[in-house]
């Protein structure tokens, strides 16, 4: 009995040290670590993080009835604190009965058209971003955990292809900056590793909350490529790849970025 207890204790010790070693060898850096101390404090303080204003707003939209069905999100999903916990950590995913993966905002809009019988919310609209921030906030602190759905593989592979393909007048790929030169400077700014850990983010440059889609469009314009249309599947594929690349990293939504 005693031997068993010692063996069990040893297993725990090994497991803990293995986990610690894994964390120590994980060299990936969230954009949070590359920011100045002031901005880090701004994000970490819930009453100084402007993203929390949108989380608060999203909570109000969550409880507000919409559409011909006159139902609110809360009527079906109840308290978001329980029903939406972990959702943002695993999206994009393929919803039941669908063929292609959807990101979080796509899923919110699907719920609106299917269940609330309401109109789709336009991309980057305040209501959509607020709802997205509210849902994503429920997963804050959880590790990013993309689902094991085998159907996602092909989409993810296409995302990886886009990530590594050169495009635009500057003929750059995402990987050239964010894999090969991450941590170095582009003008005065540190090039981040592009892990989508804090979306939707409050970007000080935008003075507003913005989605990963907006950020990707920003980068595409930066390399002078033509940004995909707002409803293009390429964004979801890229997000699938990026979320898989950031697997296990902690979700910080809503993040603050310069």
């Amino acid at each position, binding site marked *: 009995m005693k031997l068993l207890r010692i063996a069990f204790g040893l297993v725990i010790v090994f497991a803990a040290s293995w986990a610690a070693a894994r964390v120590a060898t994980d060299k990936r850096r969230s954009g949070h670590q590359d920011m100045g101390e002031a901005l880090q404090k701004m994000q970490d303080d819930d*009453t100084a993080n*402007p993203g929390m204003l*949108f989380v*608060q707003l999203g909570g109000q939209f969550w409880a507000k009835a919409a559409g011909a069905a006159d139902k609110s999100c809360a009527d079906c999903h109840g308290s978001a604190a329980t029903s939406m916990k972990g959702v943002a950590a695993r999206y994009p995913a393929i919803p039941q009965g669908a063929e292609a993966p959807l990101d979080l905002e796509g899923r919110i809009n699907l719920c609106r058209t299917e269940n609330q019988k309401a109109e789709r919310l336009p991309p980057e609209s305040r209501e959509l971003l607020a709802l997205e921030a509210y849902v994503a906030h429920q997963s804050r602190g959880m590790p990013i955990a993309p689902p094991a759905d085998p159907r996602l593989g092909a989409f993810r592979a296409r995302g990886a292809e886009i990530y590594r393909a050169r495009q635009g007048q500057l003929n750059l790929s995402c990987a050239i900056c964010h894999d090969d030169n991450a941590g170095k400077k582009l003008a005065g700014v540190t090039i981040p590793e592009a892990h989508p850990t804090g979306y939707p983010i409050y970007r000080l440059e935008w003075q507003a909350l913005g989605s990963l889609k907006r950020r990707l469009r920003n980068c595409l314009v930066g390399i002078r490529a033509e940004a995909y249309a707002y409803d293009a599947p390429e964004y979801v594929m890229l997000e699938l790849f990026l979320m898989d690349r950031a697997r296990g990293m902690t979700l910080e939504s809503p993040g603050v970025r310069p």
Partner: protein
Amino acid sequence: MANVLVNAPKTAKRGAVVEIKALILHPMETGFRPGTMGKIIPRNIIERFTATWNDAEIFSMDMSPAISANPFVSFFAMAAESGTVRLRWTGDEGLVVEERVAIAVE
């Protein structure tokens, strides 16, 4: 729908200096920017922010178009007596937002 986040201590020692922080959701539209059709978007800013402690003014400021969207204000006050701190934002388009926090002084 006004969205405000206030950070103030619930209790304070008499004579202690406390920090009060307030964040409000507001576009702070400057009135200088053209919109999609080239027409100037009308100015929509917060013009004044005031804070009172039991109706005595402890802090006030005028805001201008150069202040960012969702302005964050932080200020200090001396805790003299228990009471209500009333924060008030007023501005364009008839904006009046009021938020109250109670601070107990021991």
